[in-house]
C-alpha cells in the first residue's frame, strides 16, 4: 500500500485562464484521498526540475484523480504541457484533511483555493454554504458545478465582473456566526484576514496553507509555518491548520 506510484495522464485541458484540469489514472491502492489532502508530482525528467510539486486533490473517482494546476513557473508549465498518454510519478495522498465538525460548514475559497475545497463542497453538498472570491469572472472555476452542489453560494470579484464587487471579507459577516465552522483556502493575505475575523468573533475556523516543499512527508522540515507551539510542518501537521494556532506576521 505504498503512497508512491506512477500514474497516466488521461486528460489535460484548460479550465480557466492559465489553469489546467489534469486527470490521472491511478492504481487502486492509491485512492480514497480526503478533502484537504494533496499529492506530490514529479513534473519533469529526473534531476531538473528536481523536486516534486504539491497539488491538492481536486476531485477523485474510482481509479481517477483530478488536479487543478495553475501555471506559475517552470514546473507547472511543464506539467500543463504534458500530453495524455504520458506518465508521472506521484506520491500521496499526503497531509491532514479538513476535520469534520458538528457545526454548519461555511466554505471560503479565494482564487486557486478552489483546488483544495471543491471536494469538500462536494462532500457537504447542500449542507454547506460557500463564499467564492476571485479577481474576475475568468478566475472562477467550476462555478456552475458549485452552485449546483452547495446550499448557497456568494460570489465576489475584485472587478465586479461576476457576483458582488469586492472580496470574500465583504461577505463573511453575513455568512459566518458562532454556529459555523469555517474552512478556507486561498491567498495567504485572505487566509490571514479570515482567520483574524474568526478568532475575533469566536468562530471555529480551519485554513489550508502553502509552503515550498521538498519531501512532502515530514522529513526535511522545510515547509514550516509559525504556530503558537513553534514551527509546524505544512505537509505533515498541515496543510489544514486551526486558524487560531497560526502566528501571522
Amino acid at each position, binding site marked *: 500500500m505504498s503512497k508512491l506510484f506512477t500514474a497516466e495522464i488521461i486528460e489535460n485541458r484548460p479550465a480557466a485562464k492559465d489553469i489546467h484540469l489534469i486527470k490521472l489514472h491511478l492504481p487502486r491502492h492509491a485512492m480514497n484521498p480526503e478533502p484537504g489532502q494533496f499529492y506530490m508530482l514529479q513534473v519533469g525528467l529526473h534531476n531538473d*526540475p528536481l523536486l516534486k510539486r504539491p497539488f491538492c486533490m481536486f476531485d477523485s473517482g474510482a481509479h481517477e484523480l483530478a488536479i487543478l494546476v495553475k501555471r506559475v513557473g517552470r514546473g507547472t508549465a511543464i506539467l500543463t504541457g504534458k500530453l495524455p498518454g504520458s506518465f508521472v510519478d506521484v506520491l500521496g495522498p499526503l497531509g491532514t484533511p479538513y476535520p469534520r465538525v458538528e457545526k454548519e460548514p461555511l466554505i471560503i475559497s479565494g482564487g486557486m483555493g478552489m483546488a483544495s475545497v471543491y471536494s469538500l463542497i462536494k462532500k457537504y453538498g447542500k449542507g454547506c454554504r460557500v463564499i467564492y472570491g476571485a479577481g474576475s469572472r475568468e478566475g472562477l472555476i467550476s462555478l456552475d458545478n458549485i452552485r449546483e452542489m452547495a446550499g448557497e453560494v456568494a460570489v465576489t470579484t475584485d472587478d465586479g465582473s461576476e457576483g458582488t464587487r469586492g472580496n470574500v471579507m465583504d461577505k463573511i459577516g453575513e455568512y459566518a456566526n458562532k454556529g459555523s465552522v469555517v474552512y478556507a483556502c486561498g491567498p495567504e493575505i485572505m487566509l490571514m484576514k479570515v482567520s483574524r475575523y474568526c478568532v475575533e468573533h469566536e468562530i471555529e475556523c480551519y485554513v489550508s496553507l502553502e509552503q515550498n516543499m521538498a519531501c512532502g512527508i515530514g522529513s526535511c522540515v522545510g515547509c514550516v509555518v509559525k504556530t503558537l507551539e513553534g514551527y509546524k510542518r505544512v505537509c505533515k501537521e498541515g496543510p489544514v491548520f486551526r486558524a487560531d494556532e497560526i502566528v501571522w506576521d
Partner: protein
Amino acid sequence: MRTEVVIGKMKMKNPVMTASGTFGYGNEYAEFFDLSKLGAINVKGISLEPMEGNPSPRICETPCGMINSIGLQNVGLEAFIREKLSYLRKFRTNIVVNVLGNTVEEYIRICERLDEEEIDAIELNVSCPNVKKGGISFGVDEYQLAGLLKDVRRSVKNKTLIVKLSPNVTDIRVFAKVAEEEGSDAISLINTITAMSIDINTRRPKIANLIGGLSGPAIKPIAVRMVWEAFNAVKIPIIGMGGIMNHEDALEFILAGASAVAIGTANFVDPESTMKVVEGIGSYMADNDIMDVNTIIGGLEK
C-alpha cells in the same frame, strides 16, 4: 557476494546510509520500506537544547539542486534519547547520531552522553553553514577544528567518531588530515555548499535566511573530487555524499575512495532512493563479477 564495509568500530551490512537531516528520525520512511535494509541510519543533527530553526521559506529549488536553511531545528539531546532512539533501535541497522554545538563544551557534553547510549557512531557536524553559530568556525578553520577534535576524541570512548567536513574550504585535504591526526575513526563529506538564490520579481532572497546550503545532483562533481582528494590524503575511511540519486552515483563515490555513501536530497525526490541504491549496487557487483565491494573502493583507474 560481500557488501559489508567497516567504518571504525561500526560494521555495515552494505555501504549505504542516510545523510543527516534528510531522513528525519527514520519514522517517515518506515512506511516505504524496511529500514533494516540500510547499512546505517543517520539522524537529523542533535543539539544540547531543542532548537526552533529558521523562519520560512526555508528551502528553494535551483538547477539540479536545492538550497536549505532549516536552521538545525531539532528536539534536543534528551528528547531525542527519550522519544526517538528506542523507535530507531527496532531496526537491525546502525544508528549514527549527527551532533552540533555552539561551543567545544556543548559538543563534549553531547558526546559524553551519547557515548553511553545504544547508538553506533557519532558524526560531528562542524560545517553546517546555516546557523550563524552553528559550528561554521570549526569547519573552515583547521586550528579550531583540531582543538575541538582533541577534546571530543577524549569523550568518545565506545563509539565510532566521524567528522563531517565542510566543502567551503580551499583545500579539503588539510581538514581531512586534521581529522585523521586527531584520531577520528572516519570522515564524511561533503556537507552542503553555501549558496544563494534571488527572486527577480520580488527582488528578495528565495529563502528567509538569505544564504543556505546547496545540495543535490548539482554538487556531485565537486563532492566526488573532494572524496578523491581526501582519499589520497588520509588512510581513515571516508563516507561520501553529495548529490547521490541512484546506484551509479553511489558507485562513482566508491570508485573515488568512499568506503560508504550517504543519500541526502534524493530521499525527498524518491523516498525509496536508499533502498534502490542498495539493490543497484548489488546488481552492479553481480554484473561485473565483483565478489567484495571493498575491492573497488578507490578503484578509479587513471
